[in-house]
């Protein structure tokens, strides 16, 4: 059994030792799993980008646009803006990664836009929505497909015309906010970028 009372020095010493050993163990695990975690995330994101912009061969993160994009999107967080390039390196569109708030936390999604600012596709990477209810935004294919063709110049109005899913109001709204944010980024930031090319 543990000693009934320990001196302050003993307490500090034992906590320090335990923390140091833990830190070493964690550093080791981190080093072992780091590459795989990055690779998994990269792969999930590339697959999502590829599915919303099938013409593109490669995607490039435009870090220089991050601040402007965040500002344009308003409350919805924008994690990244990607240039979609075809085989010859010409710009075919944009991928915007956003994380609007759903019912069970952020919905990680990418929205593809062509050069004219029309939505080419929406794909959810990960989410924590209620199975059977909120997850219908992915399970029912018509829901995300109805965003295809929305014009970013006029997104707020066009999106309002679309249907939400019964029983998944908040999740539907989350997806809608994600598309609206991506459109706002295109209208506010990418429009000018695309014209320059």
């Amino acid at each position, binding site marked *: 059994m543990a000693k009934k009372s320990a001196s302050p020095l003993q307490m500090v010493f034992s906590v320090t030792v335990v923390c140091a050993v*833990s830190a070493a163990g964690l550093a080791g695990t981190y080093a072992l799993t780091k590459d795989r975690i990055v690779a998994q995330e990269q792969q999930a994101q590339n697959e999502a980008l590829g599915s919303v912009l099938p013409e593109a061969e490669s995607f490039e993160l435009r870090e220089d646009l991050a601040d402007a994009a965040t500002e344009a999107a308003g409350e919805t967080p924008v994690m990244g803006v990607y240039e979609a390039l075809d085989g010859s390196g010409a710009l075919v569109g944009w991928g915007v990664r956003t994380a609007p708030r759903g019912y069970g936390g952020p919905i990680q999604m990418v929205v593809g836009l062509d050069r004219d600012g029309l939505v080419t596709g929406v794909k959810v990477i990960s989410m924590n929505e209620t199975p059977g*209810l909120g997850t219908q935004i992915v399970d029912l294919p018509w829901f995300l497909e109805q965003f295809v063709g929305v014009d970013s110049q006029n997104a707020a109005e066009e999106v309002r015309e679309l249907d939400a899913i019964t029983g998944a109001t908040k999740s539907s709204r989350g997806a809608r906010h994600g598309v609206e944010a991506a459109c706002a980024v295109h209208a506010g930031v990418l429009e000018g970028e695309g014209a320059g090319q």
Partner: protein
Amino acid sequence: MKKWTEVFLDGISLENPLTVLLIGLCSALAVSSKFEGSFFMGIAVIFVTLMSNVIISAIRNFIPHEVRIPIFIVVIASFVTIVDLTMKAFLPDVYGFLGVWIPLIVVNCMVLGRAEAFAYHNGVWLSIADALGMGVGYTVVIVLLAATRELIGSGKLEFLGATLIAFPEWYRGPNIVLLFPGAFILFGFIIAGTYAINRRLRARAATAAVRTERGASL
């Protein structure tokens, strides 16, 4: 050796953390809407409880009484982070579903409770039995709850992409089962069930004890 199996079985039945001790409920009710996720949540909890019980019982003589809780938490948090990183690396889909509930195992009072109530006062060997019993007890209940909820609520049971059982197409499950109220109601039934089983177990143990007493006096 009998003691070991006794401690192990107590965790599953007479002292089941979820249905008898009623600890660690928050994560159990939240995660149990999906069978697959619950299964891996159970594995994660078993691993963390086992490792923290082993480490804490092994170093229990060197832990000053006054700072034992911070030390428990550091040990538990380390193993939770290890699970967190490993799952993110190798089971990204499952991790996507469990999300924040994996890091939250740190504050699952079942893990800390076992460290404080059992591992701190017992040897490594018995602490292993306790951790496994408690972990398996947690897993059995959460998996049972999740299988029921997913099957009734969405009409099919999936595991790693394969459909295990599916109701006919026309089946429309009551959505409430997938939401928190449904979890509470079903969990109530599970508690009632465990209570009935445990009462029988106790009665049988009591008659067995009486019989051996009689046998001894004859």
